[in-house]
């Protein structure tokens, strides 16, 4: 990361989130520059998904600031639906719409939310499907696809809204091992195209190769963050060492 000049895509300051008595995110600070890939790692229950979901306002924070492209987003002052159009999300379990074809999944939001014409949405949707290597699958239903194909469709569906940032919540965790590679390489291409991405993953190879910045979370706090070689090869905190030791 070069210093200073880059555009700040996301800035989080002192973010707190609780579910009832359970304090899940504790004073989280995070910056994501344009075109960066930030990888979130941490044990189960450490709050990674909750953090991502706060960034796209599927969960509403209790306190702190979330700034997206210089715009401090608050439930009271912003139409969160509009914000979500700019922040795409890919889920562990794909969450494709089973009653719609692959192309139907992709054109749903552009036509219904943005009011783009169906012809235009179909044209763009087919290009996106080509991009994720599924150009011939536009007319089938999701149930006929493999997990890896489903996830690539889900990526194309999110991209169809032309988001400025993409959030990935364990996009390969539900996949058979042999299907993980195709999804990771689609994500790598996206990163190479300059997409800003925040990725929760257990794929440390991906984090090393594609990540610009790695954030290790434990118990709702950011314990340590840094560029991949530093964090993986020279972790400063004892906790980080333990965690890396447990998964590598």
């Amino acid at each position, binding site marked *: 990361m070069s210093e200073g000049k880059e555009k700040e895509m996301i800035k989080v300051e002192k973010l707190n989130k609780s579910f009832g008595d359970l304090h899940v995110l504790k004073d989280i600070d995070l910056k994501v520059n344009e075109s960066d890939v930030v990888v979130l790692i941490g044990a189960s229950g450490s709050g990674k998904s909750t953090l991502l979901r706060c960034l796209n306002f599927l969960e509403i924070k209790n306190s702190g600031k979330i700034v997206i492209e210089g715009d401090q987003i608050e439930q009271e002052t912003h139409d969160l*639906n509009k914000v979500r159009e700019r922040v795409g999300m890919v889920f562990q*379990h794909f969450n494709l719409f*089973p*009653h719609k074809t692959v192309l139907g999944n992709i054109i*749903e939001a552009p036509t*219904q939310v943005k009011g783009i014409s169906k012809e235009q949405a179909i044209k763009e949707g087919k290009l996106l499907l080509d991009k994720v290597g599924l150009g011939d699958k536009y007319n089938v239903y999701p149930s006929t696809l493999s997990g890896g194909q489903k996830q690539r469709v889900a990526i194309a*569906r999110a991209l169809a809204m032309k988001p400025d940032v993409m959030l990935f919540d364990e996009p390969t965790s539900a996949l058979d091992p042999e299907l993980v590679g195709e999804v990771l390489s689609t994500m790598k291409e996206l990163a190479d195209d300059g997409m800003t991405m925040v990725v929760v993953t257990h794929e440390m190879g991906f984090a090393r190769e594609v990540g610009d910045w790695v954030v290790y979370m434990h118990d709702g706090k950011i314990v340590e963050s840094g560029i991949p070689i530093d964090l993986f090869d020279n972790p400063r905190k004892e906790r980080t060492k333990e965690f890396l030791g447990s998964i590598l």
Partner: protein
Amino acid sequence: MSGIKHFFDVFINSFDVFVEGFKITIYLSVASLLIAFIIGLFFAILKISNVKILQWIADAYIWLVRGTPLIVQIFVLYYGLTEIILLDKFWAGVAGLAFHSGAYIAEIIRGAIQSIDKGQTEAGRSLGMTSGLTMRRIILPQAFRRAVPSLGNQFIIGIKDSSLVSFIGMQELFGVASTQGSNNFDYLPFYLTVAVYYLIIVLVLTVLVNMLEKKMAQSD
């Protein structure tokens, strides 16, 4: 043997009067079930709303319907509606049947909506869709598919229950059977005849629902 022959004679000779009753049963059922469906959808949405008062209203309605016999509902609505707002018998009957089926349909639709994976809503919302749009475009189409068997079953019950409006003087299928039975002092053949008509209606509806289920299963 002569009993069976007698039944067939009654069945054939009464065809014209039963066709009239048949038509009324179909009109009653179609009108009441359409209205019941709208009522059901409305109360299902109240129940899953996050607004306590709306939930209570839906609970109260369902409690009222479940807690009283259909025949009582029909009579109350009949006297209430025909004497106060001067509806005719047909529409009073439709109102009673729709009021009744609506509660069961509300529960079916609510259950179907709640059975749809939460990830579907999240996917819709994450794409910038509003909660209303997500409900209409993503959740309800899937919920209806899932509800087809139960709704079909409820429609069958609704059609059979429409026989109760004969007690407010409607000459639908069962009303025709009762009238013919007492006019001819010969009950059993007419009640057997009416049973056959109901069986045919239910058979046709069952086949239709099965076809619909098959068709919808293709995309799942």
